[in-house]
Structures are given as structure tokens and as C-alpha cells.
């Protein structure tokens, strides 16, 4: 198998695996965070503004791990330097 096929195959498979596995952890973490946030609001309803704001900030921090995985996946698909190099070699 020549290098073009290898690189293409590796990139696509890895891109799929990256976002598939990378989205599991943050989803579980966010579920736990929201559950805890709801329990806190139920316990102290008059603090719900602070709790909601802190919850959103925490969710954004957790979400960023999933975003890193997504960015890596996108780079593998759309801005892949190895693919560009190999295609340039084959074309030129």
C-alpha cells in the first residue's frame, strides 16, 4: 500500500475515533456537574444565580476537552499537513 493510501486511511479512521471517544468523557462529566448543580439549586433556591453562573463556567471548562478532540478531528480531515505533503509529492 503506498503512502497516499496509508496516510488517507489513517487520517480518516483516526478522525472518527478521536471525536467518538473524545466526546464520551466530557458528556459524562457534564451530566454529573448538572446533576450536582440541580441538587444544589434545590437545596438553596435563593442562591440559584450564583450556582447557575458557576455551573455554566464549569460546563464550559469541561466542554473544552471535547472541543479539543473536535479540533484535532477537524485538523485531520481538513488541514492535514501530512496529506497535503503527500498530495503535493504525488502531483508534482
Amino acid at each position, binding site marked *: 500500500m503506498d503512502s497516499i493510501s496509508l496516510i488517507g486511511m489513517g487520517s480518516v479512521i483516526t478522525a472518527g475515533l478521536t471525536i467518538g471517544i473524545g466526546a464520551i468523557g466530557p458528556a459524562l462529566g457534564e451530566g454529573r456537574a448538572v446533576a450536582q448543580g440541580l441538587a444544589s439549586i434545590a437545596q438553596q433556591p435563593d442562591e440559584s444565580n*450564583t450556582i447557575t453562573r458557576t455551573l*455554566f*463556567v464549569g460546563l464550559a471548562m469541561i466542554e473544552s476537552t471535547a472541543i479539543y478532540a473536535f*479540533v484535532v478531528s*477537524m485538523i485531520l480531515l481538513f488541514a492535514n499537513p501530512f496529506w497535503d505533503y503527500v498530495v503535493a509529492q504525488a502531483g508534482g
Partner: protein
Amino acid sequence: MDFMQLKDISPDQVVLWQWGLISLNATIVCTWVVIALLGIGSWLITRRLSTAGHPSRWQSLLEVSVNAMRQQIREIAQDAPGSYLYFAGTLFVFILTSNLLSVVPGYIAPTASLSTTAALAICVFAAVPFYGILSRGFRGYLKQYIQPTVFMLPFNVIGELSRTLALAVRLFGNIMSGMKIAAILLALAPLFFPIVMHALGLLTGAIQAYIFSVLAMVYIASAGRAREQKESGQDKDQIK
């Protein structure tokens, strides 16, 4: 018109004009559009401010927004909003406008480019020591890096750099992913589903603008003095 191809990952790759070494890409042009909109809009609204009688609707809108921001900053910094408002408020308004304008056809959000988000994150990175030194003095601010022990110095520095990087990549990833998903869905199943994804993109854009400015405010406040004084003051009262 800016048209990003499906294979482009950021508006930096859409080059509109080129004179020799200087190239004008979609990021720069769309940033100018946001700057023009914000600048001309605020100038028009604040031309005739009235304190008594009937303020115009736009003035009330601005007053409500500024008051809400001051309230948020006061809660986060445990201190008077003061000059924090200029920095965090500008971050929020700029990122919010550039994200919400993405419904306009032909416009690409400049925050979908890592250049813009990295620039904003570097502004926050520079603002933290600026406000910290203003609040604590030079030695007081530097002493924070060796709290609680001097062995924590590399970890504190690395932590500082990594949260700047996280700020940039978080904003870039959220906005770019919204655009990419909408673009891919447009290629697959046009007409209805992309509208739903576009609405979701607006929501995440607004939330990310809020998160960016709140995180910037939290970093600045944690480098300042007011929170520490508040907390130690409360502890002393409780011990009594």
C-alpha cells in the same frame, strides 16, 4: 462576498485582495465590519444622552446592558467594577457581536479563526499581571507565583500559559465547529436542518462570549487583592 469552501478550516484562508506582501483575508474584513458596527452604533446612540425625561430606547438598552455587566463584575471581583468593566465589557460585546452576526449571509465570524481568538487570549494574558500589579504592587503580584511554596513556581507559570491557550482554543473550537457543522449539513440536507444548527450556533456563540469574559474576569480577580481580603475578613468574623 466571503465564501468559505468546505475544505477551508478558518476564514484566514479566504483571501480577498493581495498587494504584494499584504493580503486581506476574510478574518480582517469581518473584524472591520464588527468594529465599524460597534463604533458607529455606540456613537449614534450616545450622541444625545438624556438623564431626565425620556431616554431613547437605544439608550435604555445600553444602560441595561452596562448595568448588568457591572453587576456581574461586582459579584465576581468582590470589588467595585471600575476599570474592570472596560476590559471585560469590551471582550463580551466584541465576541458577542462577532458571533451573533454570523446569521448575516456572506459574513464569517472572525472568532472562527485561531488568529482572533489567540489575540484575545493574549490580551487576557497581558491584562492579568496588569491588573494584578495595579492591585497588589509588583512584589506582591510576583509573590503569588511562589504560593504556597517555591516549588510550585513552574506549575503556576505553566498553569497560567495553559489557561490562556485553553481560552483561545475553546472559543475557536466552539465557533468553528458550529460553522463547519452548518456547512456540512448544508451540503447534505439543505433547507430545514441547517437552520436548527444555525440557531444552536447562535446560542453557543452567546454562551461562549459570556464564558470568555467571565473567565477573563475570574483570572483577573484571582490575581487581585479584593477577593482575598474579603475571604480573610469573613473568616476573622466567624472565628470571633
